[in-house]
């Protein structure tokens, strides 16, 4: 493979799969925080997780 093709293949994978991984981790952390907040507040429904 040419160097430019390798660079753009890596860039595509890093940017798009990296974007997916970063956003998924962010969502997971956010939902966990919300669930903990809800839990400590009243023990009410946290099923939105």
């Amino acid at each position, binding site marked *: 493979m040419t160097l430019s093709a390798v660079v*753009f293949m890596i860039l595509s994978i890093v940017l798009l799969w990296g*974007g*997916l991984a970063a956003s998924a981790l962010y969502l997971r952390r956010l939902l966990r925080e919300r669930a903990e907040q809800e839990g400590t507040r009243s023990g009410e429904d946290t099923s*939105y997780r």
Partner: protein
Amino acid sequence: MSAPTEQREQWSGQLGFLLAAIGSAVGLGNIWRFPGVAYENGGGAFLLPYLAALLTAGIPILFLDYSLGHRFRGSAPTVFRRLHPKAEPIGWFQVGASFVIMCYYGVIIGWAISYTVYAATLAWGDDPVGFFVTDHLRVEEPAESFSLSFTVVPGLLIPILLVWVGMLVVVLLGVQKGIEKANYIFMPLLFVVFTILVVRALFLPGAVDGLNAFFTPDFSALTNPAVWLAAYGHIFFSLSIAFGIMITYSSYLKKKSDLTSTGLVAAFSNSSFEVLAGVGVFATLGFMAYTQNMTIPQLGEETPLTGPGLSFMTFPEIISSMPGGVIFGLLFFGCLVAAGFTSIISIAQVVIAAISEKFGLTRTAAAILVVGSSGFFAVVLFATTAGLPTLDVVDKFINEIGVVVGAIAMCLLVTYGVRRLGQQQAYLNRVSGFQVGTWWRAMIAIVVPLVLTVILLVTAVSLIREGYDGLPTWFVLTFGLGAVLAAAISAVVLTALPWRRNVDDFEPDDAGEPAEEVTA
């Protein structure tokens, strides 16, 4: 109007919604459209306009769809009516476009089912093109002299019946037990099987040459406006945005749900799958070029590298010449079926939810009505000897004109018509972790309508000047423009009919918790 009586259905949780949203976005286009579009528009360099389109149009419209559906809790017509009573036709227009797409999309899934069976015996022999056009579809090309017979092809009926029965079963089971469960089954399966296919393709001789052709950047393409328009056009169709799907799906989210972060995951999942598909498709095409002693550009002149031609003409030829081709073929066409099925149930739900809310029908009645009538049109229009050119022209017009018009109307309505863009931004930020700023409003108010209007004009001028794909003008006008006009006329007629459920008595709870309002 009678009072609402039913509790609105809900996803079991955010993961169920996320999988369904990804299942809707990841469809046939990801596998057969993106690789070819990227290759023809700069190869690796296409990544730049693609990312720009994703961040400035795809994700902003996705957020707008989510915010409208979640805040106004309804199908597209209900949501637009709640925005402003005179905006209801925009919702029905999106529903009409979805109905048309549903009719032909299911027929293509039917072809994929047939090819899954054909793959077991490599039934296409040594002439896959002739087999697809003549033996499978029995195509009759339209002529200038208005001669065309819509004779139903019996061999297409059983797979189509399977698709429609499967669709009916899923939508009858409802949002949580049907659509969500189907996505829980099909989406992980699709990702696992497709990854196996890609890995297998990477080990074929010539795969590196295919990847070389796919990823080698042609930077001169970046100065070509058509390449940027192709990127915006592709992202727009790929994400299932602006034809009511995401409005409908997000309306089933529980009140305490995160919209923007979920949207980012859905959008990047769709794009990640597209890149994976690009790798798999071009590694496989590299193998074909290797066996025929050609380069990929030479191969592109001989055989289709995108669309149904790629899947039903080029791939069968590759499968025949590949070691272990039968298994590869079964898995490849199985992936097409899975990707298509999770998309078509989302399109069906757009229409079913809208009809159910407007006419006060139960889910069962609305599902039977919508699935039954779409099945009828699918058979009489697309399962015939004229099915292939009809499908082609209807797809071109309904996607590139109908859906684009609906999207422009939605952005202009929210921004300048009812001036609710600020409210939608505040709502998104109230319920979500990832905050949207002025950039989001600028995209919805200026960039998206501007880019889509340019795309629309370029498409319209091209169609007027050059026609479409060498097809007779009468045929293009009757079925292409006819499909768009049918969606528009049905929007006017359905708006004029009285509501059987009270959807006007609704106030969104802008404290961050949308009212637990009703309708089916």
